């Protein structure tokens, strides 16, 4: 009795295996695409039923009862993953080189869907590890160091979660979410889990989900992993896989929220443990945005920006109020959509030009007009300019932060958006406008499947930007209470309303007027690219700043006090120390001399003797 959920979860994996088996250029693309399309179809089919009740599916595997459930909440996450998944499949049709990539891309797709749908810890852990392993194999192909760094951090996270699961299993004797939630709820009175243990559990789960979401101290793997993998896969990698981490944090709330509240109470009126998450999110936003601004490579820039944007979602969940959750969930959708679009645009650029540094690119707007349009939509959405979905979700997060009286955190959001605008504008000018280097003259538009993929991701940007009510109405149903008021075009929250339709009309009118003025009024002159920045004063060789090269060098100099401390080097040093320790341990213990080995035996006998006497 293979019901919908099993097909939904394992269709991509089966398709991936088939694509890897029939490693012929045409066939594997088709199989891969079908594999990615099936979940979209099934999710659409189950949309109606999910709103009223949930679809369940349980199988016993190796003595464990795996429960899969599709409710309104995880339908939402699965839908986000499905949209980005289908776009990735289309992107991969043009950029993937072998069946190997299809196998592991679709395996991670199965992993993500499984993580969203599973209702017991063993299934959750199994698919979580599968997702981590598959994405690791995508990066291993191109760069060993980065992939190993990514895998070690995520395996540490996964094993931290395993330890947490084992502790919960030891305490509650159960593995599925419902019983654990019930047991933890009852535990408030019994107190079987001490304060220390619940703190340990919170830290363990936070590390596990923090690593996947790229939260501040554990974000070091993101730039390397995102830029080394096949670019169109990175759209899924950063669009959907990071959402698994965020979903985990949500799970933390659902399962242990009451317990953690009971144990740690509130701090200035906010839930203490939620406040920690909020601050982690805030720091991630600020640090990642700063680092993104200073990047010279297009992939690194978007990698850091992706880490920053996920920081927003963490921050929204950290706020802890229902409006915060609504904002966070909306941002999950918008981040997946515009970040996925950005990575597909990067994939198109790298596919056509083969360049990844800003200084080698420029003036591509004429050559790749459609990709440019998509890039523009992504830019507007990321920096939160009204008609786009990005604005709606950020606006909700602002509202939530302000309402919850978190001024510093709200300050971090504003700073983050400002920086976001800074690096996004840099991307816009450096890649699309200005002089085109001579070797890029014969660049053609990206292949068709990639363009369709981009279009698929652009439409929700605009649609949910203009009519954000669609999403908030679904979120209200998912949470079961009226969090965000207003109809399809208007969002009403206690502290403000946002009429998306009105703003869009005004914007379109303004653009029309600007177009007229441009066509008839102003005259244009050719300007060399270099002087757009210095506004007239002379360009000296060593401080030659242009939009494409160290555009933000002064900012870097201002920040160099902070830039000295890099978490990346810190982790590398720890890894080095661990390996040296391993070496000395091995040399000293297995020193090859059979006499010392016999001494070890004698020492064990001594311990046994003393053990007996004690």
């Amino acid at each position, binding site marked *: 009795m293979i019901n919908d959920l099993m097909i939904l979860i394992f269709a991509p994996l089966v398709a991936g295996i088939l694509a890897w088996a029939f490693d012929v250029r045409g066939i594997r693309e088709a199989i891969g695409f079908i594999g990615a399309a099936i979940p979209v179809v099934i999710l659409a089919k189950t949309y109606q039923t999910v709103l009223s009740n949930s679809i369940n599916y349980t199988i016993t595997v190796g003595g464990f009862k795996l429960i899969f459930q599709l409710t309104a909440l995880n339908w939402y996450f699965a839908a986000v993953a499905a949209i980005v998944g289908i776009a990735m499949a289309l992107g991969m049709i043009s950029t993937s080189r072998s069946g190997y990539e299809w196998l592991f891309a679709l395996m991670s797709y199965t992993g993500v869907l499984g993580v969203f749908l599973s209702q017991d810890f063993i299934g959750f852990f199994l698919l979580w590890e599968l997702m981590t392993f598959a994405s690791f194999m995508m990066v291993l192909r191109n760069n060993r160091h980065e992939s190993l760094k990514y895998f070690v951090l995520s395996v540490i996270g996964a094993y931290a979660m395993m*330890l947490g699961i084992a*502790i919960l299993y030891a305490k509650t004797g159960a593995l599925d979410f419902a019983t654990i939630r019930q047991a933890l709820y009852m535990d408030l009175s019994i107190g079987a889990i001490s304060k220390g243990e619940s703190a340990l559990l919170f830290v363990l789960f936070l590390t596990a989900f923090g690593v996947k979401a790229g939260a501040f101290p554990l974000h070091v793997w993101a730039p390397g992993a995102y830029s080394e993998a096949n670019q169109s896969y990175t759209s899924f990698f950063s669009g959907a896989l990071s959402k698994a981490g965020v979903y985990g944090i949500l799970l933390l709330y659902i399962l242990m929220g009451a317990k953690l509240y009971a144990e740690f109470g509130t701090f200035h009126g906010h839930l203490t443990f939620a406040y920690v998450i909020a601050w982690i999110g805030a720091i991630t936003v600020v640090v990642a945005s700063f680092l993104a601004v200073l990047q010279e490579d297009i992939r690194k820039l978007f990698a850091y920006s992706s880490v920053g944007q996920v920081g927003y979602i963490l921050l929204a969940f950290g706020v802890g109020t229902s409006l915060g959750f609504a904002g966070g969930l909306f941002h999950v959708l918008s981040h997946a959509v515009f970040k996925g679009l950005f990575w597909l645009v990067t994939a198109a650029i790298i596919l056509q030009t083969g360049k990844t540094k800003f200084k080698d690119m420029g003036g591509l707007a004429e050559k790749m007009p459609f990709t440019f349009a998509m890039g523009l939509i992504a830019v507007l959405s990321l920096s939160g300019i009204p008609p786009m979905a990005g604005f709606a979700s950020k606006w909700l997060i602002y509202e939530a932060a302000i309402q919850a009286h978190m001024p510093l955190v709200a300050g971090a959001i504003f700073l983050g958006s400002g920086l976001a605008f800074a690096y996004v504008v840099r991307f816009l000018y450096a890649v699309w406008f200005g002089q085109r280097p001579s070797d890029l003259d014969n660049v053609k538009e990206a292949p068709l499947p990639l363009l369709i993929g981009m279009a698929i991701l652009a439409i929700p940007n605009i649609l949910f930007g203009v009519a954000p009510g669609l999403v908030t109405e679904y979120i209200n149903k998912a949470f079961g209470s009226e969090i965000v008021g207003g109809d399809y075009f208007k969002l009403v929250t206690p502290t403000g309303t946002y009429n998306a339709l009105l703003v869009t009309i005004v914007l379109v009118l303004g653009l029309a007027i600007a177009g007229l003025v441009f066509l008839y009024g102003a005259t244009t002159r050719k300007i060399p690219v270099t002087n757009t920045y210095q506004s007239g004063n002379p360009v000296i060789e060593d401080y030659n700043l242009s939009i494409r090269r160290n555009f933000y060098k002064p900012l870097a100099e201002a920040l160099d006090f902070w830039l000295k401390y890099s978490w990346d080097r810190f982790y590398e040093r720890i890894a080095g120390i661990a390996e040296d320790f*391993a070496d000395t341990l*091995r040399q000293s213990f297995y020193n090859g001399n059979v006499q010392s080995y016999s001494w070890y035996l004698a020492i064990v006998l001594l311990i046994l003797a003393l053990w007996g006497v004690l």
Partner: protein
Amino acid sequence: MNGQYAALIIALPLVSAFFVPVIKAISKKAVMPFLLLVTLAQVGIAGWVFNEVYTSDKPIIVMAGGWRPPVGINLYIGHFAALFVLIIAVISFFMAYFSIKAVKVEPLDKYAMLFLLLMLGATGMIATGDIFNLFVFMEITAITAYALTAYNKTGEAAEASMKYMILGGIGSSFFLIGIALIYGATGTLNMAQIAQLAGNINPTVAQVGLALLIFGLAVEAELFPLNAWAPDAYQAAPHPITVMFSAFVVKAGLYAAARLLYLMQAVSTWHSVLRLLVIMAVLTVVVAEFSALRQRDVKRMIAYSSISQVGMIAFALALGSQAGVDAGVFHMVNHAIVKALLFLGVGYVGIKLGGTTLEDFEGLGRRMPLTAFAITVGSLSAVGIPLFNIFWSKVRIMLAGVSAGYTWGVALILGASVVEAVYYLRLIHRIWFAGGGERLSESFALGAIMLFLVALILVIGFYPNYAWSLAQKAGADIFDVTRYVSNVPLMGVGA
């Protein structure tokens, strides 16, 4: 065919080992095919015994000489013994074929004899129900292992064998002191009767006796300070023998230790012995994993990984709970398959490319794709990636470990398995994405064996229910001592 014919699992390898010199006199070339034939027959008998035990759900008690225990020696072939004798037979059959290709050093008839007797020793250790008989079979396994480790007659092989011999010698002497103590106190050598009498004998004698017995077996089962001989022995032994070492010789020692441990539950200081074993097991895992990190030789690296996984099994078995023992047995079965595949692959590369250093593995994916695929599946499974078989048993061990209260132990083991992931995945990167070379021809039959093991790993990985039910029955066989004692038809003996 009544149950007593199960004694053939001991008699067959023995009579064929004695028959080998006669065959050699007839025709030297017939020795290895004869070895293949005998191991196939052993698989047949083991299969019959497995079927008999698991269908009737009752252990077969083979009473040597017709005397009921404790007067005579009895073989207790319960669920665990039936399962593992089958695993030993199947792996020995594969290794017999692999030896035809891998072992070229001269006195092949003596190699065949030692091969059969190693299989016999391990089977005997697992099947016996008498502690002195366990000592004799342990010695058979040990001495064949000394001879086979030094079989290549190189300097390193002799050195490894010498180290194994001296440590093994000390271990078995203290094991014998343990037997003298237990016999002195209880007056019997039969395990079931010892379990009955263990409660009311002099507590210090019982505690020291148990400690010495476990110490003797711990040298064989490679627990932390006592396993210094193991990496050298694995590296220097011929490739098929390394597979047999890691797949079942170690496990026979571990099973015997577990059996004795649970039999003597009534001893007053039982829990402190358990705690000591848990500490040693966790140390084994951590030290072995860290030592494997910067290995230049892949075979020695996988030897360390095998030692650490055996440490994990010992950890599970020493938890003292039914869930722990089941998890340990399940991991034993998975580990036997995975390590057989890994060492087979590495051994085959060793033969084809003349060495097993890291450089030989560069670009193996292009040169020997089938072996490279086998090694990759083996490594991924060893790391514990889901949809492979070791994932399930590792999860079981972690859950059992924390429920038994050893959270620190589980945390250390998980930390060590992060290290394991690093060196295995470095190996995979070196195999597939570094260097290159032209494609070499790979033997069809060995490929078939490797694919069979890969299929086994994936089947248990995707659908572990059957394997888990076997492990549970086998685990109950070890843990449930009252059922063990009631199954053995003890005669009322006494002054």
